[in-house]
């Protein structure tokens, strides 16, 4: 069965003024959709036919991996954002962040440094690592933490230029400021609870 483009969990203009409807129109309607179409074109007749997306990500390489992981990464990213998001974390993730990084501000600083220095098209993640600790992880291109055994992705920011070029041009730090105003801590808590 072919993969389908998941709907955005909010309206295209719901994240304005931080992320524009125009950006989401291209990012979801074109980029995310193209990964879905390309994967559907690549898997018929291969060992990946009929497999779940996460299993494909964990067992593939090259074009199949790139498109499969980018489908998953984008769906996860949409859910990390919310028009009702932003502010300080709540619940268990707030405690875990304080325990690991000292404070939310220190965590933000460390996450931003990782994101600003993540060179080229990439993603920065907060994950729960195999030891059960919070960790900030950078991946390149389609890189996805699901390929590391025992790692649970909690939060991500898309650092491909297409995620912010219409709204912020080359100013990745300004996009990160906007990102923090949208973070869906409820979703991050769900991921932490597993």
């Amino acid at each position, binding site marked *: 069965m072919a993969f389908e483009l998941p709907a955005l969990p909010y309206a295209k203009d719901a994240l304005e003024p931080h992320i524009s409807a125009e950006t989401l129109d*291209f990012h979801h309607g*074109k*980029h995310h959709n*193209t990964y879905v179409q390309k994967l559907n074109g690549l898997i018929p007749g291969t060992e990946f036919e009929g497999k779940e997306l996460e299993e494909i990500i964990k067992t593939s390489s090259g*074009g199949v991996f*790139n498109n499969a992981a980018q489908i998953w990464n984008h769906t996860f990213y949409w859910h990390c954002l919310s028009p009702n998001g932003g502010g300080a974390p709540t619940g268990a993730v707030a405690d875990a962040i304080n325990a690991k990084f000292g404070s939310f501000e220190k965590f933000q600083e460390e996450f931003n440094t990782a994101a600003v220095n993540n*060179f*080229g*098209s990439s993603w920065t993640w907060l994950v729960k690592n195999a030891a059960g600790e919070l960790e900030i992880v950078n991946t*390149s*291109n*389609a890189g996805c933490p699901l390929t590391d055994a025992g790692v649970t992705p909690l939060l991500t920011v898309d650092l*491909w*230029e*297409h995620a912010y*070029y*219409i709204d912020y*041009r*080359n100013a990745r730090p300004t996009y990160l400021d906007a990102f923090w105003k949208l973070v869906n801590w409820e979703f991050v808590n769900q991921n932490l609870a597993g």
Partner: protein
Amino acid sequence: MIHHFDDLPYAYDALEPAIDEQTMRIHHLKHHKTYYDKFIAAIEGTDLASAPLTEILKNVSQYSPAVRNHGGGYYNHIVYWHSMTPATHTQPSDALLSAINQQYGSMEAFKNEFTQAAVGHFGSGFAWLLVTKQGELAISTTANQDNPLMDVAQIQGTPILACDVWEHAYYLKHQNQRPAYVEDWWKVVNWDYVSEQFAKASQ
């Protein structure tokens, strides 16, 4: 300090409509300038401050990621700017055309292969035509700001033509349509420059 940040070899709007003025301004004044500034910051006070850029890149595996990323970004954009021109009707030299025909069968076949490489490169990077150490033409792509001069490159040699496929090179005009950007880019390729570089690299 032997390194310097130069003006574009043409006006910002000179490549319209293939490459738009706003893209060229941001690309040169923000992206390229930032690579230059960060490269200088990385080498200031070291022996590299007086070393030729191409020599630094040839030994880049010995230096920090900042030298590789920003030195690469500084160099790659210079080749990219010069690979383009507002002048119409520039033509490959007889020597270059003959090498292209010998290697790829025809100019059309070469362009198809180069376009496929540029469009098919996943993520940020550059597509190159280069002269290998054996003196043959080759097409390659490199990730991020790597290039064929670098000792870390899979296919090494002297770049003679560069197509920037970072999204910042085309997003304001072509958005997700990298194939449309590459098609427009061919319209402004500076064959005089590519021919000169081919002659130098083939000596």
